């Protein structure tokens, strides 16, 4: 994969052509802007976090049937995607009132919506991204009725997938923005998913865990971006193998004997034997279940256990 000329430089990313027809590289920047570019700054490490988070989220959405532009993560801050003919409409889904909506409708911050709202905004820096009604979209010829319906439906489906996803990771998904585009006549989810384009609040403390920390000068901006990635990056779905390694029968286990002696002296006379071993967990993302057992056994034979002195047992868990 070869990076070719710069096609577009936006506020958060640079988009490059590649030697593959129809594929582009998004290079995520550390630069941050807010309030239509009136506030500017650098968030150290943001490019890395946003690229990696987008990679994780888009792959997760793909596995759940959402068609996205994502191909793969290329480096710590670059993503390879399909090139889309972008529809200049931003779709926003809100579970809670915050920011502009709270102000516009006079709702207290963090009021929960009766049901998720879907809104359309015109992606236009000159106009300051004004809100659009469906009639406006039709009038401007930005998308047809069918596409509007489809974008709204996908946006709600994404919300249904991601709300519990973030909930499990200790984060409330308050709202988020999506961008769509067309490829071979079909609608694809494009752009990014990161703390730049959504609001996340810590489930326990309510702490702001997104770009609002930058907008409102709340401090700990870098740390927060890193923390969000840590929470979602930690355990991706996949197969987990547990390996239990214990000293072979008939092989002396000095540590086990010492523990046995200590238990006896505490009055636990019922203990006949103690053997102390090791417990290893392996996460195997993207591996077919049928192959796991054989592979892990091979790992045990070659490295994890020493068959001269140790026995092992493997447990697989999906």
């Amino acid at each position, binding site marked *: 994969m070869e990076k070719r000329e710069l096609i577009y430089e936006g506020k958060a990313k640079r988009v490059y052509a590649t030697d593959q027809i129809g594929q582009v590289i998004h290079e995520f920047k550390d630069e941050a802007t807010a309030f239509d570019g009136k506030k500017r700054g650098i968030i150290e490490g943001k490019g890395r976090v946003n690229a990696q988070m987008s990679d994780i989220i888009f792959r997760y959405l793909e596995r759940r049937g959402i068609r996205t532009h994502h191909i793969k993560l290329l480096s710590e801050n670059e993503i390879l995607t399909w090139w889309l003919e972008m529809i200049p409409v931003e779709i926003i889904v809100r579970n809670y009132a915050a920011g502009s909506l709270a102000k516009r409708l006079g709702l207290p911050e963090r009021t929960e919506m009766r049901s998720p709202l879907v809104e359309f905004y015109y992606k236009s820096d000159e106009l300051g991204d004004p809100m659009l009604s469906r009639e406006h979209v039709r009038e401007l010829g930005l998308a047809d009725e069918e596409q509007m319906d489809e974008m709204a439906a996908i946006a709600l489906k994404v919300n249904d997938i991601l709300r519990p996803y973030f909930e499990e990771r200790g984060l409330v998904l308050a709202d988020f923005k999506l961008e769509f585009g067309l490829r071979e006549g079909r609608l694809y989810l494009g752009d990014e998913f990161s703390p730049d384009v959504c609001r996340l609040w810590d489930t326990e403390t309510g702490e702001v865990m997104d770009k609002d920390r930058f907008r409102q000068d709340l401090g700990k901006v870098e740390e927060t971006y890193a923390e969000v990635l840590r929470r979602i990056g930690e355990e991706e779905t996949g197969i987990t193998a547990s390996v239990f390694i214990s000293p072979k029968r008939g*092989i002396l286990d*000095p540590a086990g004997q010492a523990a046995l002696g200590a238990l006896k002296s505490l009055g636990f006379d019922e203990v006949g034997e103690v053997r102390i071993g090791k417990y290893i967990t392996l996460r195997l993302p993207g591996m077919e279940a049928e192959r796991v057992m054989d592979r892990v056994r091979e790992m045990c034979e070659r*490295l994890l256990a020493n068959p001269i002195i140790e026995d092992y047992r493997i447990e697989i868990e999906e």
Partner: protein
Amino acid sequence: MRFGVVVFPGSNCEADCYHVINKVLREDVEYVWHQETYVSGYDCLVLPGGFSYGDYLRCGAIARFSPVMDAVSSFAREGGLVIGICNGFQILLEAGLLPGAMLRNTSLHFICRFVNLRVENSSTPWTNRAAPGQVLRIPIAHNEGNYVVDRDTHRRMVEEGRIILRYCDGEGKVSEEANPNGALDNIAGICNEGFNVFGLMPHPERASEEILGSADGLVIWESIMAYHAERG
């Protein structure tokens, strides 16, 4: 004679080995990095002590897969002299170049002190300068030196004279009391079938100058040199 001292991340006795070979024996010596995939021009390779790869998983278990170990294995297969000291011995065991394995010392303590070793076979490349049954005073420093091997292999090793050093008392008596770590049959050092690969828990490089309290380690170094000189 030209020695190569193999350095793994976490080795910490390589400088001692280098010093003894270079300054005491006055022989050629070079460090061989663990990333090396090819070794040549050496008459003897030394795997020194230490905590290669932090001793994670098991002592020597990760070091044995370093690139240099393929080269060490083929060097040994072609009859080259390979000596593994302490952690180096553990690496040779994990690599299957010597039989058996190491358990934790029965005392569960890291033991660092002088021990007495009886030379059980004095006609090897490693011990030809020792008198039969000679007692050597050399220090050990390890947590996992409790050697085990299956019964058949043990019997065969005894028959073939491949048990080279055993822990004993000052008079050369091999006994339970003289066994510092619980090793099977008081085994402190063994050879492969060809006698060109030698593993031992004691550190001869720490006892090769009188100022260090013993120069008995020289018996081993000088045996290697004598063997090499004779073989030509």
